[in-house]
Structures are given as structure tokens and as C-alpha cells.
């Protein structure tokens, strides 16, 4: 710890891939890495939103003394003398499998194909259920609608493998103000096609039902 009197000036010194780095208090490992332009891939992380930790692409291996742990860098703050590895074998194993499964989960997404190719994943062993699917249920759209816009027009429905992005009761939601934030934060562009299922047919959205 720095002996400086102002806690804002205290920095946390640790290493990422052997490079000494310093984090400001409150920074996560990911934010520190971005500050030093060290690349860590992400899908669900967005600077405007609270980290959600669902995509797990940003995992890094953090070693402290003899103990090593794979953890998401978007959620974990660094500690003094931590050794962070952004592409160790364990990290790459998680990333490659997640990307291979995403190729089957959202086969229509060009962004995911590109990201997977960067990690040498070009084909998938898993069954494709919907060749048109692009949504990976990362939750960015739900979070932006909830945290930034504040209208909660979007939500996740069902659970587990059946989890889908939908509106409450699966009807167009009058709470939607049509701001398009969800579309702009979507990492794969999946929401572009679904916006009308959220806000409904614009020509019919007049009168009493149009609350906002």
C-alpha cells in the first residue's frame, strides 16, 4: 500500500502478463487492463453498465502466492502483488469452449464468428437448434433498459437452457419509449430484429395505452 495520505492517490500495483501495472482504487482487473491497452475479450461487459459477469470471456488466471484461480476480470478488483495472466492454458480453455458453444448457440452472428476465429475456433461440435439465432442472452439490453433508461421494458423469460429475451407477458410493452439503447448496446445486433416485439407496432401506439 502506498503511504500517501489521500486515499484517492493510492494505487494497487500488480502485474498483467508480467507487465507491471497500477490500478486506481475501485478499478477492476479489466479496467486496469484496458487502461494499459492489454486486450481481454468481452461480450457482456459495457462501460456504461454495471458488470454482470455472464459471458465469462473476460476470465483471467490470477495467481497469488501458490494459489491460482480463474476469475472474470470484469468483476474482480486487483490486490497488491497479484499476478494476472490473460492467456494461460486454463483461460484459453474456458474461452475456446465458450466460443465453440456460442457458434452453435448463435450461429447467425458474424461478430461471434470473428471473435471465435481469433481464438482458432472455426467449427463447432455442438448441435445447432436455430440457425437464425444471434442473441447470446448476455443481458446488456436488459441492463441498459433497467439501469440507464430506467423503464424496464425488457426482461429475461424462462430459465436455464430455455432462457429467452422477452417482454413481460410476451406482449409489446408500453413502457418502451423506443429509445433504441438496447439495440445500440447489443454486441451481436440480435435486438435490431426484435425491437418491434418490444415496442409493438408504432402505428397502433397512440392514446390511453401509451403511458410514457
Amino acid at each position, binding site marked *: 500500500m502506498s503511504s500517501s495520505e489521500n486515499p484517492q492517490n493510492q494505487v494497487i500495483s500488480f502485474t498483467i502478463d508480467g507487465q507491471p501495472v497500477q490500478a486506481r482504487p475501485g478499478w477492476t482487473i479489466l479496467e486496469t487492463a484496458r487502461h494499459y491497452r492489454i486486450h481481454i475479450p468481452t461480450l457482456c461487459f459495457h462501460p456504461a453498465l454495471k458488470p454482470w*459477469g*455472464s*459471458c*465469462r470471456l473476460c*476470465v483471467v488466471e490470477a495467481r497469488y502466492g501458490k494459489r491460482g484461480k*480463474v476469475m*472474470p476480470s470484469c*468483476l*474482480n478488483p486487483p490486490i497488491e502483488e497479484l499476478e494476472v495472466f490473460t492467456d494461460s492454458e*486454463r*483461460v484459453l*480453455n*474456458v474461452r*475456446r*469452449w*465458450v466460443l465453440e*458453444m*456460442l457458434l*452453435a*448457440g448463435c450461429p447467425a452472428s458474424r461478430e461471434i464468428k470473428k471473435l471465435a476465429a481469433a481464438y482458432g475456433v472455426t467449427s463447432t*461440435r*455442438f*448441435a445447432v437448434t436455430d440457425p437464425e439465432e444471434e442473441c*447470446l*442472452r448476455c*443481458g446488456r439490453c436488459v441492463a441498459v433498459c433497467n439501469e440507464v433508461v430506467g423503464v424496464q421494458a425488457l426482461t*429475461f423469460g*424462462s*430459465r*436455464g*437452457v*430455455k*432462457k429467452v429475451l422477452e417482454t413481460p407477458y410476451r406482449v409489446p410493452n408500453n413502457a418502451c419509449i423506443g429509445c433504441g439503447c438496447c439495440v445500440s448496446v447489443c454486441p451481436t445486433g440480435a435486438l435490431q430484429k426484435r425491437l418491434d416485439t418490444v415496442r409493438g407496432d408504432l402505428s397502433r401506439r397512440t392514446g390511453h395505452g401509451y403511458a410514457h
Partner: protein
Amino acid sequence: MQRLTNTAELKVLRDNLLQAQDPHRPIVRVCRGPGCLAVGADKVSQAFQSAIQSQNLEVKVQPLVKDTGCHGFCSQGPLVNLAPANLCYVRVKPEDVEEIVQTTLVKGAVVERLLYSDNGTRYKSAADIPFYRMQQKIILQNIGVIDPLDIHDAIMAGAYHSLAKALIEMSPDDVIRTVEISGLRGRGGGGFPTGYKWKRTVENARENPGPVYIIANGEEGDPGAFMDRAIMEGDPHAVIEGMAIGAYAMGVNQGFLYVRHEYPIAIRHLAAAIAQARALGLLGKNILGAGFDFDLQINRGAGAYVCGEETAIIASLEGRVGEPVTRPPYPSQQGLWGRPTVINNVETWANVPHIIDHGAQWYADLGAPRSTGTKIFSLVGKVKNTGLVEVPMGISLGALVEEIGGGVPGQGRFKAVQTGGPSGGIIPYELKEEFTDYHFHPPDVKPADKMELSVDFDSMAQTGSIMGGGGMIVMDDHDCVVDLARYFLRFLEEESCGKCLPCRLGLKGMLEFLNNFSQGKGAPADIDALESLGKALVDGSLCGLGRTAPNPVLTSIRYFRDEYLAHIVDHHCPAGVCRDLITYRIDPEICNGCTLCAQTCPQVCITGANQQLHTIDQDACIRCGACMDVCPVDAVVVD
């Protein structure tokens, strides 16, 4: 009920109750645990009630019929214990009740045919039965003895005695130190030191003043596990007392019991127990005049397995979707409504009164050095004696399965033990003797380094499994590890909350591999791929569900790779379970033409005249195995 205003009144109440009790009054204890209820224990209990009340029995004292919690010996249910004669009757049917009343309660004789018998020996009292003899009952000692709906019965058995002791003799810090020295570790499966958790929570609350909450985790969702259920149904006061002591130690005024909705009896008994404890002044304002306020509230889980994970419980209690969030912050830092919160398993809470009563050192001397105390297991699967057992930690796996479990029924041979439910691993039974305990010995110690695998947190973790909540499924050579791993993965795939990608997509992907294997598809390289995918889930998933979900697969690959290879390379299921890889046929040498199989077959694909050889049409057969089950001469064989 008169409200108790100080601890002396509790003692007076107990002494009065004990004096009023007639030690010679016959007591009939009918087990109403889940196993016995399923085979009609409620009818047995009703039969006793009406037999005793309806007629003028020629006895001096009217016998008392008590509906109690689980007696433990589930395979022999319905169970009836009689005191003070100390008799244990097994498999009691409502028709037998009249005979029990006339012979035992009136004449004082024994109904021999209802006693438990094994290898030609008849056992009169429960304590002599090998299943019970090996056990050490501490948490279970009142379960099956007291009436859970009557607080007076619990008080006579010693309930709330430890709470009174803590309130008058110990400071809150003393209580925490006692629990810490006792070495109690979380019984939900993680094995986190309870006293340390409490200490951290209190420290966090001191830095950040405000309310602290405690939660009992009664969301017991593992298939084949019913330890917490038995505690909540059979001795709800133990949980309440444990929580009240914890609340006193940590300065808590509100606690929550998070119980799954699938346990309606547990909820009813807990609600009744809380109401009675409140009426007696053992919960609520100014408990026992000690100036300490604590109350409890029951919250029902809506049926999500993942809500047994502590951050998901908090989300559920706050009214959010029951999805885990990443730790840190840990609940002891920021839990319920952002306040420090302690979440302990029901069984952990039930341990606390015993530690306070007998002292930390007594508890630390029980069990193994780093896993102190006793643990309740639900012993199920291919063992003769299935049921609920409480044993000291560190008991050898062999003793647990063979001596308490009574060995494998029929012709089978032990193959493996699955511990810890869907998050646990499959341990081959051979490992019980060849296990080398390198953890506690220096590596140069050679001579007697083959020691028995002991059942405690650390030894279990070394085998790649976990202790878990206490489910213990015994498998014999008719159980297929691929099929069992597939079963657990299917369960977890259903129960995954779907928040993080490794768990949501990975469980589906692992299941795809296993489905292929069970159909004989795939290549040997796929086993390595599955193993690597499993490791990605362990490293990458958000919560404990995903991080432990691959355990059944990883351990079965580690110990039973041959069996996987047999499926993939030879297209053969050695255990004869995986339907796509087996055929049923009728052995012409043995078949006596009784036609039973032909009558049972749902596909009507077995042909043959009476007293003549039967044959199965393989094209129509769906491999349900019904013919094998009904054949009286075991002529149906599986290839």
C-alpha cells in the same frame, strides 16, 4: 402457555414437566418420516389412536401415541418404537396394530414376527440392530423420539437449555469463540468454518453499523437427499434454538428460514414450533428476560434448485429472480439488503445447541481432526439398509456402506459410491482400501500407507468428489456410470439458472456428448474433449452449481474410462443399462413358458405358447426391462 420471563422459569417448567410424566406410561412412537409415510405410516398411527381410544383397554395407564419424525431405517418402514419396553417393530401394517395393542400394550409380550430380523437373528430393541448400533446420534437423538408439534416434549428432551446457558453464562464473543474452537464446518457441502464466518460477519457489522441477518438454508434439492428435511420435520426446535444462539452471538434481531415449497410438512412443523416458541417467550421481544430480541420468519423457495446457492437465496428473499451473483462481495460483507448476512445450512444450525451445551472441546474431539463432529447421510441405492444415518466424521467408507448399509442386496457386487449429489463425484468402491492418505503423512512414510478412505471433507475432496449435503448413492455392477452421469447432468441442465454461458451452454453441450456415448456414438478423443469441457465449466462458471456440475462426469472419466470406452468402441454397455446398446433375450434353457413376460410386455412383442419357449421380437422391443422384472425364473437376460 405462560410466557417465560427468565431462564430459571425454563428450568422449572422442564422439571415440572418431567415430574408430571409417568415413567411407566407406554409410549408408541410412529415414524412419520418421508419413507414411512409413503408406505402408510399415517394409517398405522390412526389405527393406534382408534384402537386405544375406542375400547376399554385393560391397562392401568392409557398409552400415549406419538407421531414423530424420521427414525432413520427407511427400508423397513413403517417403523414403530415402543417405550418403555424398548421394542422396535418394522414393516407395521394397520392390520398389525390390533395385535400390537393386545399383545404388547396389554399383556406386555413381544410380537415376534414384527421384529427386525437379519441372518436369522431377531432384534428386539432398535439399539441392537446393526444399522443403528454403528451410528452416533447427536443431531438425530431427539428426532423420532419427540413429538415435533409439541414444544413441551422438546423442552423435556432438553431443547432451549443451551439458549438459556448462552444467554446467562456466555458473552456473544464467547459463543463465537466456542463455535470456532469446536471446528464446526458448514454442513451444506462447502465445509466452510462456521465460527470464522460468524466472526467475519460481526467484524463487518462493526465497521458498518446496522442490522445483521441470519438465514437457515433449507432448500435441499439434491436427488436422494433428505437430511435437512428430517431435521426440520422431526426436531424443528433444534434449528430455531441454533439460530437464536447464533443471533445472540452476532447481535441479530431477524432471521429467515428459507425452506423449499416441496417440504410442506417441514414448513408446517417449523411454523408450529415458531408459534409455540413465541408463546413461551423463547422468540420475540426480550427472550427469557435477557433483553435480547430475535424473531424468525419462514420463506418458501419456489422450486429452483439453484436457490440453495447463498447469493441466490438472498436474491430470492429480496424478491428478485433467484439467480446467483458473483462473490465477492460475500454475504458476510454485503448480503441481504446490502447488510452482513450469515447463511448456514439447517444441519449446521442444529449442531450449535449441542456445542454450547457440551462445550467446544467435546465437539472438537468428535469425528476427524479437521472435520469435527458428526454428519448425517442419506444412504440410498444398492444397499440393504437404506435410510438416514448419523456417523462421526472420518468413519471409513467401507464401514458406512457395508456395516451400516448391510451390503448389496442380491447377487450384485459393489461398484461405486456417489457422494454429494449432482455436484459430487462417483468414487469407485475399490478406492476405499487403496486410498493413500498423502495429505496428512510425509511422503517417505511407506509401510502402512494404504489406509481406508475416510468420509470427511478433505479426503472426499482428494478423490475428486465432495462431501456435499450428505447424499450417498451406492451403485452395484448393474448401474452404468455413463448413465448416472447423464442423469445428474440432465437434472442440472434443467436447474441451471442460465445466467452465465459456461453453465447454460456447457451443461447442454456435455449432455450432448453423453447422449452420444450412451448410444454408442463418438470417438475415444471425445472423452478427452468432454473432460476438457468439464474443466472449462469448473473454471469458468459463475456459481457453485456450474463449478461443481462436471464433477460426476470428471470423476467417472477419471476412474471408469474403460466403461466409457466400452460404450464408444465396443458399442456395449457393461452394466446393461444404456437402452440403445443392449438387447433382452430369453434363455431357452431356463424359460418355463409361464407367459408372465408376454402378458406384461407393453409392446406386446413377446410371443410363445403356454409352457413353451418365449421369444422377444427385437425390432419392436423398447428395452424397458419389464419382462426381466417379472420373470420368476430369471430367464430374461440382457446382452
